[in-house]
């Protein structure tokens, strides 16, 4: 578990972070989301013991980053924004070096190395100098050095920065694989990356924690408006008068529904778009069933993460 309490960092006289407090449970994949300068990298560097906090405390797996930094360092694997690579070294030598730095003996590293090369898809370039590799491969080497010593916690700062679309998908898949065995913290301002990879988000703005929760929770919390799209089988006209008016009336009476748009009708179905002030999916379903209508499909259009993000940080970014 990671527990930060009133974590604060000053650069000179300028406050870069905090005070912020948060907890991350074992096995979670948490995204630090924020604009440039929001404090994401500072928070992750403190977690990785690359920086020391100015105030507050942070524990990683029960060890304090200030009083027991070596214990913390043994438990974390850190991939900074620019992977910490030695361009003159072959990939396998570099990974052996990284393992030895983390206190592994050569035998253990030799046994672990094939697995790490396989997971990161580096086997084919294992003996190549890092300086000759493409950006995507270098990023993979950065991930490999972070996992060589089987750390419990992985910290990735902007892991897809500078990658092409194919490499982004590959990196995302790699992170998905790593989630099985590690607690993963990722920072990014690329919203789709965060939303597709993380279980939970911590939204930072100007060094402050502006929000925390899943994407849906943040969307609901920040915007009480949800769009529900519901499709029902068109009822026979003889039973209910005008079918469109009947279904519209049923939907309008549901608690939380603020607006029902005119339906899109096909031969045997009607699709309505509802604006709601809360998560009214269950109530809408019940109302349709109680009115003896056939529910064919119900979906809700979540507030887009981009919109949520902009709303959350909007008031904290100097009017930008």
């Amino acid at each position: 578990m990671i527990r930060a309490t009133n974590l604060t960092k000053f650069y000179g006289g300028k406050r870069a972070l905090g005070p912020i407090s948060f907890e991350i449970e074992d096995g979670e994949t948490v995204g630090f989301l924020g604009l440039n300068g929001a404090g994401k990298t500072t928070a992750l560097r403190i977690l990785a013991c690359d920086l020391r906090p100015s105030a507050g405390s942070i524990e990683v797996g029960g060890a304090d980053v200030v009083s027991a930094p070596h214990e913390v360092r043994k438990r974390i694997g850190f991939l900074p924004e620019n992977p910490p690579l030695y361009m003159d070294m072959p990939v396998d030598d570099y990974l052996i070096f990284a393992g030895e730095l983390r206190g592994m003996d050569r035998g253990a590293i030799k046994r672990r190395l094939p697995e790490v090369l396989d997971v990161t898809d580096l086997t084919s370039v294992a003996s190549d100098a890092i300086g000759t590799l493409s950006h995507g491969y270098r990023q993979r080497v950065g991930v490999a050095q972070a996992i060589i010593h089987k750390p419990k916690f992985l910290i990735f700062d902007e892991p897809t920065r500078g990658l092409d679309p194919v490499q982004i998908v590959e990196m995302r898949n790699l992170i998905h694989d790593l989630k099985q065995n590690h607690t993963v913290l990722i920072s990014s301002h690329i919203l789709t990356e965060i939303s597709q990879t993380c279980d939970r988000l911590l939204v930072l703005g100007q060094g402050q924690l502006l929000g925390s929760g899943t994407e849906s929770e943040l969307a609901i919390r920040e915007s009480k408006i949800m769009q529900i799209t519901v499709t029902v089988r068109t009822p026979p006209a003889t039973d209910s008068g005008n079918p469109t008016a009947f279904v519209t009336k049923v939907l309008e009476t549901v608690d939380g529904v603020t607006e029902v748009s005119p339906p899109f009708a096909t031969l045997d179905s009607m699709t309505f778009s509802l604006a709601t002030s809360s998560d009214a999916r269950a109530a809408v379903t019940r109302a349709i069933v109680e009115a003896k209508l056939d529910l064919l499909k119900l979906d809700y259009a979540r507030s887009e993460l981009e919109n949520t993000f902009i709303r959350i940080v909007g008031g904290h970014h100097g009017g930008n």
Partner: protein
Amino acid sequence: MAATSVIYRRELGAYLRSPWSWVIVSATLVLSGILLWAYAMKGELLSAIVLERFFFTTSLCVGVAAGVLSFRLVAEDRANGSLVLLNTSPVRETSIILGKYLAALTFLVITVALTAYIPLLIKLAGKVTISQILVGCVGLLLFAGTVLAIGVFASALAPNQVIAAVITGAIALGMGQFYQLAGALDEPVRGVFMDLDLWMIHFQQGAGRGVIHLKDVVYYAAVSYFFLLLAVKTLEAKRWQ
């Protein structure tokens, strides 16, 4: 100690792999040869005088080489981001500095060893002893190792290699001028500056003449220790910034 050894091996490997390192070695050899020819081979001289002049000119070349080899040690890692790997590993700052310093010192030993053909030629053609040559080489390494320690400190302090070079040059040249400065001062300050002189007093008037004094060894060891300690504390302090 294990971490020091790991860092030492990596850094030494980096020196041995880098073409720039060998360019520095080559330049040192060429310059020391040219300076020997231009300065020490004029007229008919005793072989002991030629050897003394060889150590005089070569100490300047090796001193500059030590400075150049040291610039990259920490500043390059900081500039290309690889220092983060060391900072986020369970490794003490002392191990980082010591591993890097010892690797550069080993490469300097290789450099000094490669210059040794000249004193050996002097021995073949003259009447110097192997002890004189060995003492001179040890003195060269003590002097260059101290310049290296100054360079490691500058490299830990500076954000890039250019600034590290300027700081190293300023400190080493400044300490090398203490002898000149002492000439313009009265006792007891004069004595203090004489004792702190980096080159003339402790190298040229000692090992450079085939005599090694314990006070010179202590001086170089103390100055090296001082700057390496400063480098360690600088690395530690950078984490708080």
